[in-house]
């Protein structure tokens, strides 16, 4: 049996509503074109079963869940629980966070294509900026985010092993992409590929 191909695609939450090349329409077209067998989303089983999408990010609510409903794409909820919202920063840390956010916004808004968000210099720079932001949030929040990503990875592996050989696309906020890919590469029965190669 060949290794199960897995691609991780990053999304931009509310930025997708803006008139940028990687807007909601572009995301829908991209995922429809990839047409994975399994679409792993950062949703809990409870949210999926009760169709409680109110707290989900825009790109799930308004793009991917409706797309899956109208195609053969099967959604696999891979979150164990929803992480605590990030705390509001104060003082100097808040000022630094604003600067980082504005740099992130520039990097993401100016990306010419979805590929530019998900690969290459912009992708690495965005990841570094997210790391800095996480650093400002304090140790407890950082550990919680790491734990959340680890659980996502474990559930993705479980989904891939339940249906080996199928094409698995993971769509999560771009901040988790690097970490998830790194974790998933540890599994010999998975082959982490670019989304364009899935």
């Amino acid at each position, binding site marked *: 049996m060949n290794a199960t191909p897995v691609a991780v695609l990053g999304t931009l939450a509310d930025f997708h509503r803006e008139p940028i090349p990687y807007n909601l329409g572009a995301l829908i077209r991209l995922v*429809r074109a990839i047409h994975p*067998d399994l679409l792993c989303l950062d949703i809990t089983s409870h949210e999926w079963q009760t169709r409680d999408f109110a707290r989900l990010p825009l790109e799930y609510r308004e793009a991917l869940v409706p797309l899956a*409903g109208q*195609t*053969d794409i*099967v959604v696999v909820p891979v979150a164990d629980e929803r992480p605590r919202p990030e705390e509001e920063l104060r003082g100097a840390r808040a000022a630094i966070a604003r600067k980082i956010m504005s740099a992130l916004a520039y990097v993401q808004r100016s990306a010419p294509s979805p590929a530019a968000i998900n690969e290459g210099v912009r992708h690495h720079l965005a990841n570094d900026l997210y790391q800095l932001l996480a650093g400002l949030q304090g140790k407890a929040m950082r550990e919680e985010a790491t734990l959340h990503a680890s659980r996502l990875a474990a559930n993705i592996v479980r989904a891939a092993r339940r249906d080996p050989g199928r094409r698995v696309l993971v769509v999560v906020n771009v901040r988790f992409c690097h970490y998830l890919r790194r974790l998933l590469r540890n599994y010999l029965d998975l082959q982490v590929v670019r989304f364009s190669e899935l």
Partner: protein
Amino acid sequence: MSLVVILSEPRLRREAWRALLQAQPGIKVVACVGETSGLADLEAPEQGVAMLVDMEDLLVETLRLTARLRPAWGALVLVRTYERREIAPLLRAGAMGVLTRDSTVAEIVSALVASARGELVLPGSLTPELLTDLLGRALSSTDDIPALSPREEEVLRLLAHGLTNKAIAQDLLLSVRTVESHLRAIYAKLQVASRTEAVLWAVAHMNPPPG
């Protein structure tokens, strides 16, 4: 891409369906007709077509005519409520599925995709009774029972609840292609030729009965 033909008498309703469905990904409306005579000359494939039937009257007669003109098309009929005595005659007349008018757009699109593939679309709570009505025969429960894997049993049980391949896949968190592969294995083990026969086998043999 699932091809859809709309059969509905009022022109405005036909055009509304066309506008609504045309906007859905994966759906292509190939024609809208007001009466069954319009189906005969339509240039559309013989297979892989779903027909959305939204008629107020003479449904059974319409379906019989349709089945004669286009036997391989999957007719999906809109009904007021899921009542066995209303649905069974429609299935006997050739309908591949029914949906109530309360259904969401997503449910209708998903049902049309399933009908175009030749899958039955039935309310889960009534499926066993409806299929027994439809085929009009009871299977002996003393037949040899082939060994299905636990996964195949799960798939067959959900099939007998009237779920489409996509719904089975979503329920088990498996890909649709994997469910199709399990179904092929199930058909071979049960020595049946169709989805309907497999469901009827499940109704007769699976204990407790599904539904």
